[in-house]
């Protein structure tokens, strides 16, 4: 069965390569990695083991990345209702207005983006666009759209619709520009049409019905990976207008969102259509029987918000739901023992101990190195992290291109740490160690346990630790991000498959939280971001990572693989490192 599926996948890939050969070879990201692209739901991928081959999911456009992601088994029978236990309600079903995982999860079922990620990986593959190419200067990106695609309201999906969406985002005003609303536009494109901050976006041109060109103000290789985020879903222009998607009311100091597009009438091109939404109770989607690609197997998909983690687990065990995300690491073994399926999402995060170099003695490289050697990261990850976690050697996950195997390693070596302290000549070894309370992050399930482990390690080599703690949302983040913390725990989950979203976010510019000014690193990362050629970019990021780990702005210590749990018999779910996952291939078994 597995071989047969691989064969199907390969022949699909071959077919796609033929259809996609219009793209410019230099920048073509639509490589053979697109085994199960656009029209095929992840049904073709197989494998039911818990481990995931993260290496193979690297975003190397030249690679033939045969992603063999973890799935919940083979394609199963059609029909039935799948109830998924979400951790919260979506905020609103309008990609442009959200950045939270629960919203994006549901949006990705109703809407589609121009490009997407290969199931289980970060390779960019076609979705609504069959192929694309960029101009030699990297300023114009031309996409060939899939023909004869209709929105769920029976209007046409075409180049004009794509431009309508891009122009809509670009013209956001007022509160819609705020990072709490259009976070992803801000992250990928920067500013808006009002010109208050420079924007990467320049214009959109509908060349003909199925060809669209997006013009940028500067070359950006991260642009394509960014477009795969469901925040850039293409919505029906008719529905957007009819249901006032952009109607922001209220007063200037108390803005309100008044349209009903994102709450009652979301219309995209996806494999599921919106049926009803009772916030707090459930969001119901139905199979889109007019879907242009492979139609979904299940008839109905319900997202049931269950805020309480243990309640999600009980609901799965009683059969009230068929799957849920964010499994508590402490529950994984028990669930597996009881016959439930656990799928691991390939690592796409990093937990690190950050140093603020504006606070001595952290401006001293030898002290930073001493801390790195003093920390027993292996022991911590083994003792306190769930299966699938690994010790981090740099500030981005190994599955991403640009990760270098040549960075300086800092294995646990207390003696070397002591020697480095001596060499540094620093006598005041007091450190204020910030760690958050009232929080559990994918890369940091129990911050207090991490703190205790590292505190003991640091004290063992002669540092004196003063603990500083505050609730994550109740002061901790504000304190740390504004540069008040000396050494601190923080982490990051990637938004999209580009190194700029990891090391670029951290170190491309001067930031209070790190408190250093190192033009060499800033320039290296800026150059890497602006380079078009993927092979060249990979090299530049590898070199930048070596620079960073020599300079040691902090100690990355863990990459984790968050787990999802499913009822026995459920098949076809493919966890993605960037959480771009489809229910179209899911069967209840």
């Amino acid at each position, binding site marked *: 069965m597995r071989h047969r599926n691989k064969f199907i996948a390969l022949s699909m890939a071959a077919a796609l390569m033929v259809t996609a050969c219009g793209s410019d070879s230099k920048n073509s990201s639509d490589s053979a990695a697109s085994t199960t692209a656009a029209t095929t739901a992840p049904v073709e991928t197989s494998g039911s083991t818990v481990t995931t081959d993260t290496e193979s999911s690297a975003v190397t456009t030249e690679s033939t990345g045969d992603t063999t992601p973890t799935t919940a088994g083979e394609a199963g029978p059609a029909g039935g209702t799948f*109830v998924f236990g979400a951790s919260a309600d979506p905020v609103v079903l309008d990609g442009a207005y959200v*950045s939270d995982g629960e919203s994006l999860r549901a949006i990705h079922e109703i809407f589609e983006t121009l490009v997407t990620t290969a199931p289980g990986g970060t390779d960019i593959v076609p979705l609504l666009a069959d192929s694309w190419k960029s101009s030699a200067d990297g300023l114009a990106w031309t996409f060939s759209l899939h023909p004869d695609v209709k929105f769920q309201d029976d209007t046409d999906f075409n180049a004009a619709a794509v431009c309508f969406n891009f122009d809509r985002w670009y013209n956001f005003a007022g509160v819609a520009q705020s990072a709490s609303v259009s976070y992803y536009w801000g992250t990928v494109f920067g500013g808006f049409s009002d010109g208050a901050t420079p924007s990467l976006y320049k214009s959109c041109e509908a060349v003909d019905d199925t060809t669209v060109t997006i013009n940028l103000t500067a070359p950006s290789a991260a642009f394509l990976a960014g477009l795969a985020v469901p925040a850039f879903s293409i919505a029906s222009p008719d529905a957007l207008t009819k249901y006032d998607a952009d109607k922001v009311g209220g007063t200037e100091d108390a803005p309100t969102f008044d349209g009903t597009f994102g709450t009652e009438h979301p219309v995209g091109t996806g494999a599921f259509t919106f049926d009803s939404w*009772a916030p707090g109770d459930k969001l119901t989607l139905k199979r889109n029987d007019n879907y242009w690609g492979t139609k979904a197997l299940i008839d109905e998909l319900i997202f049931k918000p269950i805020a*309480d983690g243990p309640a999600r687990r009980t609901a799965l065990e009683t059969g*009230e739901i068929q799957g849920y995300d964010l499994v508590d690491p402490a529950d994984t073994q028990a669930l597996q023992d009881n016959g439930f399926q656990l799928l691991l999402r390939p690592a796409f995060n990093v937990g690190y101990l950050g140093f603020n170099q504006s606070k001595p003695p952290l401006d001293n490289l030898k002290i930073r190195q001493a801390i790195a050697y003093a920390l027993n990261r292996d022991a911590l990850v083994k003792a306190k992290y769930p299966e699938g976690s690994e010790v981090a050697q740099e500030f981005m996950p190994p599955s991403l291109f640009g990760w270098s195997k040549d960075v300086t390693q800092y294995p646990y070596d207390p003696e070397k740490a002591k020697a480095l302290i001596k060499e540094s000549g620093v006598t005041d070894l007091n450190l204020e160690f910030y760690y958050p309370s009232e929080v559990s992050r994918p890369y940091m399930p129990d911050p207090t346990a991490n703190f205790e482990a590292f505190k003991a390690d640091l004290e063992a080599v002669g540092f004196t630790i003063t603990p500083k703690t505050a609730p994550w949302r*109740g002061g901790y983040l*504000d304190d740390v*991000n504004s540069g008040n913390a000396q050494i601190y725990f923080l982490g990051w989950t990637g938004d999209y498959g580009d190194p700029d979203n990891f090391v670029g976010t951290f170190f491309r510019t001067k930031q209070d939280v790190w408190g250093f000014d190192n033009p060499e690193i800033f320039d290296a990362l800026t150059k890497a971001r602006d380079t078009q050629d993927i092979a060249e970019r990979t090299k530049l990021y590898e070199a930048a990572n070596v620079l960073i780990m020599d300079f040691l702005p902090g100690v990355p210590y863990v990459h984790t693989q968050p787990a999802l749990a499913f009822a026995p018999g459920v098949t076809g779910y493919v966890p993605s490192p960037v959480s771009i996952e489809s229910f179209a291939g899911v069967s209840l078994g």
Partner: protein
Amino acid sequence: MAKFIIRRLLLLIPILFGLSLLLFVWVRALPGGPATALLGEKATPARIAEVNKSYGFDRPLAAQYLTYMKKVVKLDFGQSIALRRDVTDEIFRRFPATIELAAAAMLFAIGIGIPLGLMAAKRERTWFDFTAVTASLLGVSIPVFFLAQILKYVFALKFSLLPTIGRLTTTRHLTEHTHFVIIDSIIEWDSGALWDGIKHLILPGIALGTIPLAIIARITRASVLEVLNDDYVRTARAKGLLTRSINRGHVLRNALLPIITVIGLQTGLLLSGAVLTEQVFTWNGMGSLLADGVIKKDYPVIQGGVLFLAVIFVLVNLLVDVLYAVIDPRIRVS
């Protein structure tokens, strides 16, 4: 009587005004704002400043409060920052769930608590009385979430008898009219939904009702014991009245006053949101709305929700006072 009610209602105005001011200042004094809560580790100082500006949180507090109060007077609590929905709508959508759960819990607490207390009082110092007192002590002291886990384990996981999440089975569709599942299923004449709704009420109802049950049982027992020893009961007995009519006409009616106070207070408490029970049973009511609002520093939700619940609490207490007068003519006269 009417004067009394009006005076009490007028008293609400300064209470609410003071409370709104207190809340307004308090939620803003908490470290970390809605921007940090929404953006998590991605909340850079620049982004936080930008969010605060777009929502007007960078303006002077007094100016913000003025804008806020202007809207509150029109019963407009603004829009939730995290949910992007109208807070007033959200409250009216969620409150029926809380009422339904509170009603189930009180039905359980009163239905068992009063008879239990009565029987314990009449069998004072017997093994029954001793067991009832001990059990009620246990009932008061057991943490709700612990009880909820036990209930779930036994009734849902072990014996698969009852559901653990929500108000209806997720796959069941029931047209909403009133947001009360029980009432809606009667309107729709859907016996399946009615039974399903009742089943979903049982475990959270028991979890939430256990503490009130224990309190009601204890108060009933104490109150009945006190009345049983009163002169007029002895007189009635001496007159040769039947025990049953003594109990009904003399004992219970007089013993009821403190019981009603307790029931009123407990109902007020349950209506003001059973945070833990609602979280554990994924009950989509006021408790979970407020808990979420506090976690996400959602100022409009916290302010609107608490003000609304304060009004409910005062009204329930007023109702209790009015009930006193109905039951006890002495209060009416005074």
